[in-house]
Every structure is written in C-alpha cells, then in structure tokens.
C-alpha cells in the first residue's frame, strides 16, 4: 500500500509537471504582446521593448520556462498583467467562493442523482428505469448556461424568491449549485444505477431476499452500502468536469470565483492568471483522482494493490 501510494504520488507530480510545460507552451500561441498591453497606447516602441525586458520576455524560451518553474516551486505564480497583483493572492481571494459553489454543487448532484439511480435500479427494465435514464440523460445534455439563465428568470424574476445572481448568503448559492447539480446528477444517477444493478444481481442479495427480508431493508442495508463505492470515487473524478462547468456558471451568476477569474483573464489574455488558474484546477483534478484511488481501497477491503 505504501509503495503504491508513493508510486501514485510520483505519477501525480509528473502529470503536473507535464501540464506546466504544455500550458507554458500554449501561452506562446497568444497573438498579443503582453508588454504592449501593459505599456498602454501612449507608449513608444522603445518603452515597450524595455517593459518586455523587464518581464523577461526577451529571454529564450527554455530560460523563461526554467524561471517560471523555479518560481512555481517557490509558490510564486507571477503577477497579473492587468491587476499587478500576485497571482497566488488573486487565486486565494477567489477560492472560497468556488469551494462554496463546489460543495453545494456536489451536494445537489448527490441529492438528485443517488435517489434517481436507486429508483431506476429497483425498477430496472421497467418504466421507472427508462424514465429515470431519460431524465439523467436530459441533465447531462442540458446546456448549463441556458439552464442557469432560465432558473434566474423563473426564481429570481418572475417568481422572485431567490437573488438574481451574486454572492453572499446561502440563498445566493442555491441556483448556481442547482445548475451545476442538474448536469452532474445525470452522471451520478447512471453510475448509481449500474452499481446497484450489479449488486442486486449478486448472490448474497438474492439470498437475503429469498430469506424473506423486506425489500426496502435489503436495499438500504446491503445493496446501497456496497454500491455507494463507485459513487464515492466518482466525486474525486468529478472535479475536472466541475471546474469546467464553474466557468460557465460563475459567468452566468456573477459568482466571484476561480471560473469568473479565468474567464476575465482569457478575455484580456492576462497570461500569468490563465496559467495560474490552469495549474490550480489541474492540481485539483490530480489530487481528486489521487484521493479517489487511495481512498477506494480503504473503503473496500476486497481491493488490494501490490
């Protein structure tokens, strides 16, 4: 187990390193000159050149990357071109909002998805199954931005029981979390259903049923406990999908999180911020996957790694 953990950690670090290389190379596709952006319209060509040197942009690529990596290892992600603030500070100021949204969103996913999956599994092959799966697919197929805007229209405007976007109280988080949750719930419902179906087909469940245990008891006591595992690991794997959705949802709901920051930075090609967001979210994803892999065997004693 320890060896497996170490190997897995090493892999994660390698992946993060690879991501930093690719992200860094991507920024060289950017058609705009950051020095020119900083210098403003009153600057002469010489001033722009001087600022370019100031930023180290006149150095060869490997040198620039080396410096980037060195700073990265020291927790320095550079300074925003637009805001002239340390990128780490910007990210930290945005993290609480995104975390709040993520926790609420995962809560919404699980709350909507798990019962739907259980119901579909219990009625497998019959109409609850078909209906549940069509609904699950609808959630997965719905464009989040349109869902968000329509939720705002209905619950924020026509029937104003919730705020029209913005950040602050628990009431603000309901609609964005629901928007994120509707999409994710579809996946959870499908995973839950197939895990449940598999468990329900196992001998011990059949035995329990045959022994005359009430069906609800069978489900809650045996089937649910054993089929929840894939769902747990899914939370870890989900983070990547989530971080993507967060950009759209935060933009629709004016939610001051990482996604909004990313979107604003992309608009003005604020490269250090874009790189910071990508590195941060990639780390989330890598850590999420890592936790899913490491926690899974702890929950399920049948699985052993060598």
């Amino acid at each position, binding site marked *: 187990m320890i060896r497996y953990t170490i190997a897995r950690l090493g892999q994660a670090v390698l992946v993060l390193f690879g991501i930093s290389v690719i992200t860094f190379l*991507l920024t060289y596709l*950017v058609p705009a000159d950051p020095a020119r952006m900083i210098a403003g319209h009153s600057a002469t060509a010489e001033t722009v050149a001087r600022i370019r040197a100031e930023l180290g942009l006149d150095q060869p690529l490997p040198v620039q990357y080396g410096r980037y990596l060195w700073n990265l290892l020291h927790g320095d992600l550079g300074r925003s071109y637009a805001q002239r603030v340390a990128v780490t500070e910007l990210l930290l100021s945005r993290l609480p909002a995104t975390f709040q949204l993520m926790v609420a969103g995962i809560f919404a996913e699980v709350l909507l998805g798990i019962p739907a999956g259980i119901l579909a599994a219990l009625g497998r092959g019959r109409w609850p199954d078909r209906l549940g*799966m069509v609904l699950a697919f609808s959630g997965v197929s719905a464009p989040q931005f349109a869902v968000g805007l*329509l939720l705002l229209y209905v619950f924020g405007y026509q029937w104003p029981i919730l705020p029209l976007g913005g950040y602050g109280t628990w009431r603000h988080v309901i609609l964005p979390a629901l928007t994120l949750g509707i999409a994710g719930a579809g996946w959870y419902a499908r995973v839950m259903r197939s895990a449940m179906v598999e468990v329900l087909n196992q001998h011990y469940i059949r035995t329990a049923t045959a022994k005359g245990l009430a069906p609800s008891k069978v489900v809650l006591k045996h089937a649910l406990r054993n089929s929840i595992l894939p769902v747990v690991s899914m939370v870890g794997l989900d983070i990547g999908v989530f971080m993507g959705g967060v950009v759209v949802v935060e933009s629709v709901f004016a939610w001051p999180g990482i996604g909004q920051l990313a979107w604003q930075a992309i608009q003005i090609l604020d490269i250090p911020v874009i790189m910071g967001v990508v590195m941060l979210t990639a780390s989330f994803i890598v850590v999420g996957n890592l936790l899913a892999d490491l926690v899974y065997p702890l929950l399920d004693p049948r699985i052993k790694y060598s």
Partner: protein
Amino acid sequence: MSGDVAIAGAGQETGKHRVLARFLRNRPGVAALVVVLAVVFTAVFAPYLAPYNPDEQFFDGLTLEGMPLPPSQRFPLGTDLLGRDLLSRLIYGARVSLVIGVVANGAALAIGVVLGTAAGYIRGRVGQVIMRFTDLMMAFPALILAIALAAILRPSMWIVALVIALVNWVWIARVVYSQVLSLAEQEFVTAAVALGASRGRVFFRHLIPHLVPTIIVWGTLGIASSVLLEASLSFLGVGVQPPTPSWGGIINESQSYFLDAPWLVAFPGAAILVTSLAFNLLGDGLRDALEPDRTGDV
C-alpha cells in the same frame, strides 16, 4: 413487437438482425433516432424550411427603442436583438451544430482510436508514453483549455471543431485502449498469433472489426458532447463567428436582455437540449444493442 424480436433472436438470425431487433426494443433509443433524423432533415433543408433569410435584419424586427419582438404571426418565435427572425436562425443553427458535432467528433474519434489501439497493441515504451500523455490531458480542465485555445486561435467553425476534438479524444483513447487490452488477451487473438499471423494482419483482421461497436457508440455519444461544447464556446463568445447562426451564440448575444426577452434563451436552449439528448439516447440505445452483456455503465 417484443414477440417478433424474441422469435428473431431465437431463430439465430444474423448478428445484424439481432442488433437491430434489440435496438428497436429500446423505445427512448428509437424516439431519439427519429429526433436525430429530424434535426438532420432540418439542417439539410434549412433553406426550404426557414421562413426568412437568417441574416436579414428587419427594420420592423425591433421596436423604436431597439427591443426585440416577442413571438407573433410575422415572426413565429420572435426576433433577436438585431431584428432577425429567431425561427430562421434556429433552423440554420442546426447546420452549425451538426457540422461541428460530426466533424469535431470524427476527428476526436480518429485520434482516439489510432492512439488507443496503438497504445494497447504495441504496448512497450510507445504505449506507455501514449497513455501517460492521455493521463496528462485528462488532468487538464477541458472546458478551460478549450476556451483558452479558442480565444487564442482565430475563431472559425473549423477551429472550434479542432479545439473540441483536441479535448474530446482523450476519453475515446481510454476506452479503446482498455478494449484492445482485453481483446488481445482473448482466445481468438492468441490463437491467430499462435498460428503465425503477422502483427498487422491480426490488427486489421481481428482487432479493428471488434472495435466497430465501440466506434459506433462513441461516434454517437461524442456528437452530443461536441454539440454542448460548441454551444458553450459560442455562448462565451469564442465560438463560431457572427453572423453565422449558432444556438449558443444566439444566447450569448441575448444574455443581457434575458429578463425582457426570455424566448431568446429558452428556444435555442431547448434546441441544444433536444439535439444533445437525442444523440445521447441514440448512443445509449446503440450500446445496449451492440454490447448486450454490459450492464450499461458510463
């Protein structure tokens, strides 16, 4: 109908018939097929179906204060913020969605299948490198990557398709890789190798045909996610260039007016949902039909 199917199955008909029969039994799948055909029909015959030129900005399509018109007899689904007929734009928008969905997913499929089979079949160092690379790509936040790429590159329909392919191939490569791995272990492959078949022959005669179901299923499911991704990119303003009508783009243009003109969000939103849902259900139905032993997991 289920009776016929049972007979067909029992009669040991050819595989194709069995698959068809199984598919026809899946009612959501059949309904989805009908919807997909309808969307394709709409896209192909858009010029005959649309009441107006989708790009024409009507003088009487806006109020004097510049507000769009709600649905009416003249404009069945209302007008957009430039006074264009929304219905005509939605009809033409089907073209963009389908072309990008098919092209992007086709490219993703090609990359994914080639790299997935290569990694699974060649293995060794090459396989290792390929799979580590897919791991890496999976750790990228896909939408953020797509947005950044689309913003950096000059947006056009083909660039959007390319960007979508670049973020979507990874999943396909994954699936194909694990399939090839398990196929390579199976008796008919080991037997062929034992009988002295060349690697190339085994590859093309024995492996690729067994991947066809996977390719069909992912070729359909992937269109659904490509349609959604295109809509998201266009919604954020880094997708298809105006005035080409795109469903996501229509919502982007109308976003700040949605409280007064909710139809400008609701109708294109519904179009995206229906199309994406249809491809998802169709793909799911095909999977059930082609790979009946699977329990239908993700």
